[in-house]
């Protein structure tokens, strides 16, 4: 399990988001990517997944070049997008969403799934506790239920690398804790990269923290990275979030 970016430059028009950045993440565990809004966390994920082609540099997943090639990256990783980036203008049921992980890879469309694929879909829905809402349209569900459906979809092929973009955003506090626990469980035997505006839920289990702010500002063990002065610099100072994170690191990790 290895995710690597070499000399990556990303720009939207004239606006440069990352300039010749390197990143290497290796081995199973929970990697938490933090940074304020607009820091480039989602952009970083999209570059690593091949969804955005960098102006310069290459991206590798397990040694395979996936630069601008999402169809290759998709075979190696599971992806949970940011819930707020999705729209449900049309009824799609939970089951349809989860089984799309199988169905989209099997073109031309077949009416019936082989038993093994059906079993995969059933299994992840069971594990994520969404079997009883399988026939419900996503638009009618709570943020937590939608998030569980998206995680289930990412887990269908049992990927060894998981990218999760703000997996607890738009989720109520109880749901947040439940989803965070599930993510920690998942990270025991695979690499899980979680981006979060509020990392406090993940810090106690994080193997490494990557601080992003229009570039990779810091990367390392939580105790080394979660320093008050660095976070104040990144988040702009005086933010309660910073105080909370530093306190958490001091009391549980540091």
């Amino acid at each position: 399990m290895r995710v690597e970016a070499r000399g990556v430059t990303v720009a939207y028009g004239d606006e440069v988001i990352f300039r010749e950045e390197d990143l290497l993440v290796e081995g199973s565990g929970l990697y938490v990517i933090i940074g304020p809004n607009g820091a480039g966390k989602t952009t970083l994920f999209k570059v690593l997944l091949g969804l955005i082609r960098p102006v310069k540099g290459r991206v590798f997943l397990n040694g395979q070049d996936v630069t601008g090639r999402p169809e290759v990256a998709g075979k190696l990783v599971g992806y949970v997008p940011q819930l707020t980036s999705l729209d449900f203008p049309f009824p799609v049921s939970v089951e349809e969403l989860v089984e799309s992980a199988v169905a989209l890879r099997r073109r031309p469309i077949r009416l019936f799934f082989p038993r093994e694929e059906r079993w995969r879909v059933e299994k992840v829905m069971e594990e994520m506790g969404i079997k009883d809402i399988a026939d419900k349209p996503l638009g009618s569900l709570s943020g937590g239920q939608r998030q569980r459906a998206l995680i289930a979809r990412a887990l269908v092929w049992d990927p060894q690398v998981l990218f999760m973009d703000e997996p607890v955003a738009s989720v109520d506090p109880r749901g947040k804790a439940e989803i965070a626990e599930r993510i920690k469980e998942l990270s025991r035997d695979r690499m899980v990269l979680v981006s979060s505006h509020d990392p406090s839920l993940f810090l106690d289990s994080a193997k490494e923290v990557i601080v992003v702010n229009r570039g990779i500002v810091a990367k390392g063990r939580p105790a080394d990275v979660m320093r008050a002065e660095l976070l104040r610099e990144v988040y702009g100072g005086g933010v309660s979030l910073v105080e909370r994170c530093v306190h958490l690191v001091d009391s549980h990790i540091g």
Partner: protein
Amino acid sequence: MWTPTSVELDVRWFLVVLMASLTYGVMSPVVKARRFLFLAGALPHSALLSALLAIVLERTLNFPFEVGSVILSLLLVSMVSLLIARGLSPDSATAIFVSFTVSMTTIVLYYILTAFPMETSVWALIIGDPLLVTWSDVRFGFLITVAVVLALLPFLREQILLGVDRDFVRLSGVRPEFYDAMLVVAMALSTVGLLKVVGFVVEHVMILLPGVIASVYARSGRQAVLVSMLVSLAGGLVGLILSLLTGLAPSGVIGLVLLFAYLMVSRR
């Protein structure tokens, strides 16, 4: 004087209405799921312009009307695709497209009405009339229906999921550009190919309403596609029968039936 009993039923009326209903019933949920409503509402304008230009070609160069209208329609719709590919937002590209086609339609319509004595044909394009179709129209409509259904029906899952989560679909190895192009071409073909049957005015309703009704009523994508097709087929047939009984314009009555269905569903 016209009375319901004086009507001699013609199988062609039912065939063309069934074909139009099936085509739009399949296309409408995709248009809704992909949020192509604005473009779908604009395409009848380009279909009308293509058909009018095809009349001019037919009258001046003896170029076959059906072939001319399809080619012109595809050329016009590729204009929107080009604008979007050049970085314009779909809404802005559609706005430019509509402004151009509406203005040109007025100019070409004026030219046709003054240069050729073809008022009846022009009105048939605008208000549509399944009762005036010929066997040639039926054959043309059949080809359009088969092409559109084959372009969309096997790929409904991809099309719908592209509207929900484009990134995930790309990660699954699907190329969105191919499906975008297929949808736009299918929309262009159906609007120009069925213009004589449904008419420019009611085409908007037939493209938009079945999908909207289905999205209100259904709980899953599969259910929504089925509902859209049933609503479209039922609306088409009921509208045609009611128009025969009342002597009102068939495409107008079909539009009202679909509107009534929408109002009933939206009260849920």
